């Protein structure tokens, strides 16, 4: 039987349609996955259920939970339900907790608010809950403050808070998107476990099909505020009736076709590089503790080669990247371009011209006050003087990345995320560099856009014989685009080798852990389907 039944939920915000006739049922004690790309309306659906919509929201439809239409209830009653019968956790654990309250108080508050317990009882209960979500009392006493916890730990606190009163429905809105893959796995286990033990239902909202495949019993696929297809997970994954679903799957499983021709010429040579930072002193006169971000990393990258660098946040890959880009000096070892010229913040411009970069955030990567032409041509600064055929080269670069010369006179805000990444690539290409560092270059993109960009990158690599240093936390992507891969952990490269071999037969335990933690869609579910959709 179903715990909650949503009927024809439609929503407009300030007149713009957000949801249209969304209907679904969440069965008792099951996990219901709601999948869709950004802007598909999945988050709004959950907020609608909580009746926490932003101002100007105009909602119609029903959400029936044991005979009551939630939408018909007044605010007070709703307050009684939130956190009590329906709990919710959000995407950003870093900001989801009140920075000035201890985690104990924040968990306890949920209980106190609903009069479920006195403060003392509440605190003991809070303790239990925190233990339940894997924050043991020894390392995580109640008087800890959020800023003393990692992202994953904070998400656990949020969960403890949400399930403190054993709600019958837990809504999790992209609960693991902001987390590292190993942490993600743990959190998903935790959620699954709670569902199984406490018999509560879980509405899991995510953009990641693999995640749903792993934990959800039922799935609904959303597009443009509509549910285009829903059903039990396996069935839906196998059939994929709706073509949007198909495209989604195709994209997520997509691998660009590449015939890499790796030459012998060494583009980048990193030789036992060290970089460490001084941390604030513990005691006033004690020694300054040091964080060794990169400890003796060495590798080489050849022309035409695409080298992957995977690792979780804090493993030192960003620091290494900055050093390779010549934005930070290293304290030990050396980084050399073309195997000879040393890279450093003071390196000569002509040398810099051989090296370009594409960043993760398509929104922060461009000066909003500049026209595309100026943005793309900024690297000309590295030239002795701006080339005479600047305009042509701008147009050429834009065309190469699949935009039109006309776009040169537009401002960046006129472009979508995917287009922006294309512009970023154009900027990287304009000087005909030999090496491009791709720093999480596709991580912020929706699957379908990501697929296109990957294709573009593959094509460009062949046409220009570029060397790629591809930095990412997403193993799928790395596997899809790199020839060799390096696994980085706490400042060191723990494993390196041919991508396929490493993935097929990981040597280092950490590599295994990573691969194991990465959610995958069971191979047999998708047999034969992918290629079909590709051609």
């Amino acid at each position, binding site marked *: 039987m179903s715990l909650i039944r949503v009927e024809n939920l439609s929503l407009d915000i300030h007149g713009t349609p957000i949801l249209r006739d969304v209907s679904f049922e969440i069965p008792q004690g099951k996990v219901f996955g709601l999948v869709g790309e950004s802007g598909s309306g999945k988050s709004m659906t959950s907020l609608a259920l909580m009746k926490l919509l932003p101002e100007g929201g105009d909602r119609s439809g029903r959400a029936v939970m044991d005979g009551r239409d939630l939408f018909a209830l007044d605010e007070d009653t709703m307050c009684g339900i939130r956190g009590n019968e329906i709990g919710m956790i959000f995407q950003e654990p870093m900001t989801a907790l009140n920075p000035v309250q201890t985690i104990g108080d924040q968990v306890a508050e949920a209980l106190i608010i609903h009069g479920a317990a006195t403060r003392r009882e509440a605190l003991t209960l809070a303790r239990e809950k925190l233990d339940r979500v894997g924050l043991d009392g020894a390392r995580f006493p109640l008087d800890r403050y959020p800023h003393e916890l990692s992202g994953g730990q904070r998400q656990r606190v949020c969960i403890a808070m949400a399930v403190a009163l054993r709600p019958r429905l837990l809504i999790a809105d992209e609960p693991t998107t902001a987390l590292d893959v190993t942490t993600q796995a743990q959190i998903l286990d935790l959620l699954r476990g709670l569902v199984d033990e406490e018999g509560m239902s879980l509405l899991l909202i995510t953009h990641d099909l693999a995640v749903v495949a792993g934990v959800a019993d039922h799935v609904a696929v959303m597009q443009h505020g509509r549910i285009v297809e829903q059903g039990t997970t396996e069935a839906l994954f196998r059939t994929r009736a709706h073509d949007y679903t198909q495209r989604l799957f195709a994209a997520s499983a997509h691998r660009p076709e590449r015939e890499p021709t790796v030459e012998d010429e060494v583009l980048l040579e990193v030789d036992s590089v060290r970089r460490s930072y001084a941390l604030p002193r513990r005691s006033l006169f004690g020694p300054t503790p040091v964080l060794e971000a990169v400890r003796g990393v060495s590798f080489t990258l050849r022309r035409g080669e695409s080298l992957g660098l995977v690792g979780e946040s804090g493993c030192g890959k960003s620091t290494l990247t900055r050093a390779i*880009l*010549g*934005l930070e000096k290293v304290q030990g070892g050396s980084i050399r371009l073309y195997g000879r010229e040393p890279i450093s913040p003071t390196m000569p*411009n002509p040398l*810099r011209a051989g*090296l*370009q*970069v594409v*960043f*993760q*955030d398509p929104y*922060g*990567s*461009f*000066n*909003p*006050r500049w026209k595309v032409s100026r*943005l793309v041509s*900024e*690297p000309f*600064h*590295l030239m002795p003087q701006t080339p005479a055929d600047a305009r042509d080269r701008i147009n050429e670069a834009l065309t190469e990345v699949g935009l039109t010369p006309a776009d040169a006179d537009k401002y960046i805000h006129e472009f979508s995320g995917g287009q922006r990444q294309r512009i*970023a690539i154009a*900027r990287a290409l304009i000087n005909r560099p030999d090496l491009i560092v791709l720093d999480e270059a596709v991580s912020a993109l929706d699957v379908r856009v990501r697929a296109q960009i990957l294709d573009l990158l593959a094509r460009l690599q062949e046409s220009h014989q570029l060397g790629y240093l591809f930095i990412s936390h997403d193993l799928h992507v790395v596997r899809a685009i790199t020839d060799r891969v390096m696994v980085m952990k706490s400042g060191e490269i723990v494993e390196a080798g041919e991508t396929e071999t490493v993935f097929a037969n990981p040597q280092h335990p950490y590599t295994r852990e990573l691969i194991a933690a990465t959610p995958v869609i069971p191979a047999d579910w998708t047999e034969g389907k992918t290629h079909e959709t590709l051609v």
Partner: protein
Amino acid sequence: MKRLPMTLIAGAALTGVFALAALISMVWTPYSVEGMNIAARLQAPGAAHWFGTDHFGRDILSMIMVGARTSIAVAVIAVGMGMVLGVPLGLLAAANRGGLIDEVIMRGNDLVFAFPALVIAILITAVFGPSAVNAIIAIGIFNTPVFARVTRGGALSLWTLDYIRAAEVAGKGKVRISVEHILPNIANLLIVQGTIQFSLGILAEAALSYVGLGAQPPLPSWGRMLAEAQTMISFAPHMAIIPGFAIVLTVLGLNLMGDGLRDILDPKLRRAR
């Protein structure tokens, strides 16, 4: 695209009136502000003198107009001075964030903030003698750290963005980046802050010339008009009330304008949408 907020329109209108008066006063005033007519002194507002006359028989309307010129000029130049000194400091501090220069600049800021503004103004005039110029300097000094701070704050948030990285990768130095990328993108902040400082400048000028440290006679200034009117408030209230309202309305106008500008310019609020 965006429709202008009410506050902006109202504020601009108010400010405009006084700016206009100031402009006109350069070419024409109803009466000469230097011409005295002791016989016709202390007249209440009437047909001949719309705002009445003061204790020397001067036309108050004319003095308000010229006074507007004084106040606005002093405030504008002082704010300009604050910007010219403060913005580069702020950019410099942000460019070397966490470094020694940053520390020195910010501590310097705190120090200036720590000095009692009016007292310093009095001291400055005690050293150099009272004059509009010294009023400007006094106000300008205290504008500098404000702009330094705002600039640094805005710049710091920008320095974390990827397009700055990109510029660095394109081999651009701190100075060039500060000018090409940072400055244009904090312009909004500065405009908003500028308006606010402008209104504060008007108030400060009024206060200074009220205690006799601002523009010297015969050049009229609102603050001194108030000071002179003070003892006559009980039998010639118009002398105190009219300049008072001139100040209040101008400052009000500027503040409203500042609010309006913030609403349409401040990136923070825009992201919120």
